[in-house]
């Protein structure tokens, strides 16, 4: 655990959909600049946990602090504007506006003084340059995912939450995404929390790993510790 004050600090977090208790007593910290992988099987609660951090869906009980501030009662858009930005699993690119317009929309989340110039963003994602004028519905899944990440970055996040950014993507696109994330980390001062099932991808981009199973955190540590216990992989990630 980094010695600095955590950027994100979660204590006693429980989340419910109707009567279903999905997230159970979760505690986790993310330090500034850190990249944490959140691993777990389908249905383990990764997406629900991410949405809970923004109060964007499930009913949430517990404490979420961001940069020392308790986020209770703060609505989604204001959490986003504080620098806590979620790129959801289903990407949600607006189909009937262009790639450039989709990406511009991300700017609404940016705090004054922390805006990313469009040029800088397209330099980070050169693949997007020729696609700027293409409509959202004309993109492949991989392109949509890259647009979604770029749009999230446009909000100048301090903690970017990526929900399964390489799900369903071809291996070559997964490699591209890993390269993008590495470059983002080199050029921008931000922390990342990445929900994943793709172990090799998660390993390439993250410093630390959190395992979640049935809504509970069952492991939180570095990759060496994770590798030292082969049972973890078998018990919580094997399909």
């Amino acid at each position: 655990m980094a010695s600095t004050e955590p950027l994100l600090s979660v204590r006693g977090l429980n989340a419910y959909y109707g009567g279903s208790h999905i997230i159970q007593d979760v505690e986790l910290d993310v330090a500034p600049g850190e990249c944490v992988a959140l691993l777990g099987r389908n249905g383990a609660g990764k997406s629900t946990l991410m949405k809970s951090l923004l109060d964007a869906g499930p009913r949430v009980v517990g404490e979420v602090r961001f940069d020392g501030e308790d986020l209770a009662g703060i609505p989604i858009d204001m959490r986003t504007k504080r620098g806590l930005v979620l790129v959801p699993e289903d990407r949600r690119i607006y189909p009937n506006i262009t790639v450039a317009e989709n990406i511009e929309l991300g700017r609404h989340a940016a705090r004054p003084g922390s805006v990313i110039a469009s040029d800088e963003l397209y330099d980070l994602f050169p693949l997007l340059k020729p696609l700027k004028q293409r409509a959202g519905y004309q993109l492949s899944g991989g392109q949509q995912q890259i647009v979604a990440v770029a749009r999230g970055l446009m909000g100048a996040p301090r903690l970017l939450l990526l929900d399964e950014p390489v799900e369903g993507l071809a291996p070559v696109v997964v490699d591209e995404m890993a390269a993008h994330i590495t470059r983002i980390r080199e050029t921008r001062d931000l922390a990342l929390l990445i929900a994943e099932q793709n172990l090799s991808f998660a390993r390439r981009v993250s410093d630390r790993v959190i395992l979640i199973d049935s809504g509970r955190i069952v492991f939180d540590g570095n990759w060496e510790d994770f590798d030292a216990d082969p049972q973890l992989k078998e018990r919580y990630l094997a399909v």
Partner: protein
Amino acid sequence: MLYDIGLTVFNGLAWAMATFLVAAGLTLIFGILHILNFAHGGFFMIGAYVSYSLMTGMGGSLPLWLYLVGAMLAGLVVGLLGWAVDALVFRRLRDVEDAYSLIATYALLLVCGGAVQLIWGLNYLGVTPPPALNSVVFVGNVFMPTFTIFIILCGVLAYIGLELFISRTQLGQLIRVVAADPWMAQLLGLNVKRIYLITVIFSFAMAGVAGALLMPNQSLSPELGGIFLLQAFGVVIVGGMGSIRGAFLGALLLGLIESFGTYFFPQYPGIFFLLALAIILLVKPEGIMGKEQTA
């Protein structure tokens, strides 16, 4: 024969554009907030009454510009009522089933009728159009009241203005984005509540302006809201719920059908609109434009 066709088309256009002026705000609220606002006719009626009070307060027959200023003021008043309705009613309807919206907005319609009775009474009221619009023009043999021409022009201008606003302005784009996926819009830092509020104020203001513009041609009574509401709903349904373009085309289609129907069967006025509505719903239940493309 040519004379008859000209007159019938003119009457159809008059029906269509008067109805479109009412339907525009109705379809906008449905398209963006997914609330079927039964009270829309009520607020249209309040716009008409407010404009009546302004016009009679200023001495009755007013110059055109004052009549237009009065319409804008009526729009402002009804727009502000929209603010109150959003805060008190619509905001609570966002996460509940449609049936609650129907009941709540129908109740609001009743409240509008009651308020009008309390403030303006039950008597039929009326004013004449401004003198500049109180004449007739002959195009060939066809006799066209200038006030009706004015209403047709208002309908066309309202349509063009709305299309440009929604497709070309930044606020229009944000409204489309929120309509398409409000959850994602929030994740992008958009204040969805505020965009809903702007939409409601704007739609209500349009209802108020429509009431004020159409008022000189109407006998004002507390039933006025219901009459226009039925036509406007027909147009919105035929056009495709939530589509501005659909409402415009639906208004033209139903207006012409009603007008030609009444021409051929003058003993059955008003029935062709309902007949056409029923047939179109059977053949193309999603409406002419189907679901409006948002963002």
